């Protein structure tokens, strides 16, 4: 009996060990799931979107098995550093402040940031124009950085998700939002909820806050994975996979120049 039990325990332990060894082969990718059209959740709970398709294409290109791990935006970098996943593919802009914590691949797309407000809004997106107004951004984004740097006197509301920002814009609690132009256009303005709203002013520019586009974040020193991603990004750009995914969501090439 004892022997049998021991054998069973050994088998379980071995199984767990093999399981762990296999699990290491799987690349875990942190995604957000509340940032349409880049990543959003379907009614059945599946995460879909541009980021997800790019992640899958890169994994296929690298010949690795991947799983998507959902994570709230403001805990994304801490979770990567805590090894909850191995890379972040969540429209994360490559900025100096973030580079202190993680390493980035080359960009996989680059789109500008813009304001959105109610159609016919009678103010300009300048420090004077926004005086007395309330602007909403997602917490921990390049847009928070930009607002705090250039509009220190404007009241800023911070939200957990871009969806929550848009919700409060519709409710009328905030006068304008600052976010990625594509995310605002496809994720909000073109939807039913976004009726009656429009872009306010042009592209906002600040390389220090906005960085050089969205890249894939990996843990500091994880050069092997970073290089593999870089190669895969170049490969899907060259072989037309990127274009196919791009065209599924957007009318123009969002890779930028």
């Amino acid at each position: 009996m004892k022997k049998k039990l021991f054998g069973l325990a050994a088998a379980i332990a071995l199984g767990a060990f093999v399981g762990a060894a296999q699990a290491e082969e799987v690349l875990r990718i942190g995604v957000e799931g509340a940032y349409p059209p880049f990543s959003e959740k379907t009614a059945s709970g599946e995460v879909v979107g541009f980021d997800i398709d790019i992640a899958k294409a890169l994994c296929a290109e690298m010949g690795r098995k991947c799983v998507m791990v959902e994570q709230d935006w403001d805990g994304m970098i801490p979770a990567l550093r805590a090894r909850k996943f191995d890379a972040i593919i969540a429209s994360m802009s490559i900025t100096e402040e973030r580079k202190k914590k993680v390493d980035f691949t080359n960009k996989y797309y680059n789109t500008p940031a813009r304001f959105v407000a109610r159609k016919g809004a009678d103010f300009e997106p300048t420090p004077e124009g926004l005086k007395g107004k309330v602007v909403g951004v997602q917490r921990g984004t390049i847009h928070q950085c930009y607002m705090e740097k250039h509009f220190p006197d404007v009241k800023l509301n911070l939200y957990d998700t871009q969806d929550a920002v848009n919700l409060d814009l519709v409710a009328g609690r905030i006068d304008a939002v600052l976010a990625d132009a594509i995310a605002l256009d496809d994720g909000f303005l073109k939807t039913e909820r976004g009726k009656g709203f429009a872009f306010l002013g042009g592209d906002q520019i600040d390389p220090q806050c906005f960085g050089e586009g969205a890249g894939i974040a990996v843990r500091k020193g994880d050069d092997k994975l970073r290089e593999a991603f870089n190669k895969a990004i170049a490969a899907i750009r060259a072989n037309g996979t990127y274009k196919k995914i791009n065209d599924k969501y957007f009318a123009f090439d969002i890779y930028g120049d």
Partner: protein
Amino acid sequence: MEFDLIFKNIDLFFQGTWMTLRLLFFSLLIGGTLSIPLAIARATRHRWFNRPVWMFTYFFRGTPLLVQTYLVYNGLSQFDFIRESILWTVLRDAYWCALIAFSLNTCAYTTEILRGFIETTPRGEIEAARAAGMGPWLRMRRIILPSAFRRALPAYSNEVIFMLHGSAIASVITLMDILGAGRTLNARYYLAFEGFLTSAVFYLTITFMLTAIFRQLERKLNKHLYPRIATS
């Protein structure tokens, strides 16, 4: 640990403390005041008074404060007629939404605490008041309520501390309370726990001060309830 970033942004936490204390004070004030008539109604045997209050406390004690806050903040704003009504001038503001949800929540708990102590007023006190010729209202005002307040103090101090901790929910509806300051610090520098740790220290300090205040109050008001220690 990046202590320099905490110190550089310590102002955030002091502003957050001010917000947390304001929310705490006013929700306790509003909730506490409302709870007195409700507790009296709840303690009566009359069904018409007792039942509605029971339903109110059952709802607010039976659902999480987070859900109640979301219902006030995101729920009510979904209706056009509310957004177009005079109510919106109040509900538009996240601070008021939090204050309404917190006040109703603490009101429900305080009502039940107070009700318990009203019902367990020593019979002798009531009999003595009756013998002195006091009517039911005078009895309630002069004897039962003051006695219930004193005996409820330890239980109520718990409620106050729960409310302090519950007020951290304000940060999910954009208010910059202590936790909001911590999350902003984390978000600004992509930190994992410096902001949370600093928030925890601030909450601990406030809790410490609150317990000290209540201990003093208990010592002063409930002196007659403690066994006397012989001094020789």
